[in-house]
């Protein structure tokens, strides 16, 4: 052991110093920008607003208010409905499309570029064109429905369809990214599995379900986790479709984070908003934990 030699010890301490030097900007930044705010938000959620933007710790009042606020219950339900429909449906569609794009066909590059376009677009811009397409009187969707002999529907304001409309736009916006990740995973699956299945005469659907899905399950799991967390924080589409407070249909689509935003930066009740965002955090945490426990049952790791 050379640890006793002063030069070696000095070298070790010098290396420690380098270590702290390299991580310092990130660690200090994260403590100021993220760790400290977590505690502030937690404290604020147990406070009431006083004058001049100051806060006084007062107890669980905000959480009690939250329990009796009908908008909160609806927002939690909407958030769950949005998440549990948009994420699984989006992953199934992108899995099928990714599997199709991995077949030996021409023009895959072109398809990939087109399907990826919504990922590049500014959310505000695409939400606005979707809003126009959803218009009850002259929107292109209703015009097509009517031309086919159906009745038009109030996509955004009818409580039966409002959430569905948000979900459709969200799935459309997310497909490209999921497809890219799944194509990467499917390309890595060894051809020998498919060749063996071909010899057994397996159908395409069977191959997708019995070979592709299990072998890319780590990627599906990754998309599920990130998708669920992203969806539980849905804000953009609802905000662009319905604005802040009163639009018809907002009651059926208002998400928890939308409610948080309005309370914090429009109503300006920041302590109440802090309690709301803590609830959102708890829900996300529960989903994440369930996922990590559940993955053992169906995610297949190759190594």
């Amino acid at each position: 052991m050379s640890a006793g030699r002063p030069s070696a010890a000095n070298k070790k301490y010098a290396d420690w110093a380098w270590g702290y030097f390299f991580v310092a900007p990130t660690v200090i930044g994260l403590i100021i920008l993220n760790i400290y705010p977590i505690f502030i938000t937690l404290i604020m959620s147990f406070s009431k607003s006083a004058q001049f933007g100051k806060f006084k710790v007062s107890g669980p009042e905000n959480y009690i208010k939250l329990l009796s606020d009908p908008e909160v219950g609806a927002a939690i339900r909407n958030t769950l409905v949005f998440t549990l429909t948009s994420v699984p449906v989006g992953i199934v569609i992108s899995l099928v499309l990714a599997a199709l794009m991995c077949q030996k066909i021409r023009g895959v590059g072109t398809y990939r570029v087109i399907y990826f376009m919504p990922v590049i677009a500014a959310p505000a811009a695409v939400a606005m064109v979707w809003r126009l397409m959803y218009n009850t009187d002259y929107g292109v969707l209703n015009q097509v429905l009517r031309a086919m002999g159906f009745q038009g529907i109030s996509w955004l304001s009818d409580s039966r369809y409002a959430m569905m409309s948000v979900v459709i736009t969200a799935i459309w916006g997310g497909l490209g990214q999921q497809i890219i990740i799944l194509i990467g995973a499917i390309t890595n699956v060894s051809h020998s599995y498919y060749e063996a299945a071909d010899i057994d005469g397996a159908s395409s659907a069977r191959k997708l379900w019995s070979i592709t899905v299990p072998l890319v399950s780590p990627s599906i799991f990754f998309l599920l986790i990130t998708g669920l967390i992203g969806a539980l924080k849905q804000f953009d589409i609802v905000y662009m479709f319905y604005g802040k407070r009163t639009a018809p249909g907002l009651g059926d689509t208002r998400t928890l984070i939308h409610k948080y935003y309005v309370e914090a930066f429009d109503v300006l009740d920041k302590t109440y908003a802090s309690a709301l965002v803590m609830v959102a955090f708890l829900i996300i945490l529960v989903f994440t934990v369930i996922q990590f426990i559940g993955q053992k049952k169906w995610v297949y790791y190759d190594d």
Partner: protein
Amino acid sequence: MENTKARGSIVIHIALIIGAIVMAFPFLWMLLTSLKTQGEISAVPIVVLPSAFRWENYQKALDSAPYLLLYKNTILMIIGRIICALLFSSMSAYGFARISFPGNNLLFSIVIIQMMVPAEIFMIPQYQMVSKLNLLNSVFALIFPGLVSAFGAFFMRQQFMSLPYELEEAAILDGCNRWQIYSRIMLPLTKSAMVSLAVFTALFAWKDLMWPIIVNMDMSKLTLSAGLATLKVSLSSNQGALMASSVIATFPMLILYAICQKQFIEGIAQTGMK
């Protein structure tokens, strides 16, 4: 056999083409609507192609928002966040991955915590910090939450951990110090990961809507996405101009994407994008 194969690939093409139409249609519709009169937009039955290109919608759009400023703010925000993410994340990632010092794991857990917690939890306190610094309505305010990137640190650490140790040992024997090893040997080896992180950071900043509308009220200090959200209210009676605004805010990015789509797609495939 050959015949069924050919038929199979035709079926696949048909399915993918239908999907592609669904994906591309809103962009096409945005473009077409931006060139129509309000009468054509709200006509029943539908008017698909404008009778004449109504460029005045674009004039109206350009009159209602300072697009050059919005572009400038957006680009400065993206560049600022990319520089911070690349520099600080790669530095800390190198420290976390390659140097053993007391507290390494403990400090890295801060990175993990940040990634587990929804960003909205930080927002009110971050807003108050920017406000206390008297920096609301500034480009700095736009960059602020991106001054450090936990995801970047996590992602780059993964990259550094996969590099062989021999390189580093040889450099230490040659008398290089840690900074020289980091900047001259390790960084060049993670170039493609850095490009991916830059793409990820750019897209994430570009698509962020809530933070810009919180910290910057002043139209001349908004990002494109946030500016559009404001226009939605002020231009609500003129949908042609609204769509023209959307085109102005969307198509330059689409063109940029068309030019460097390889980097975009690889960036997303590599980072997974949160």
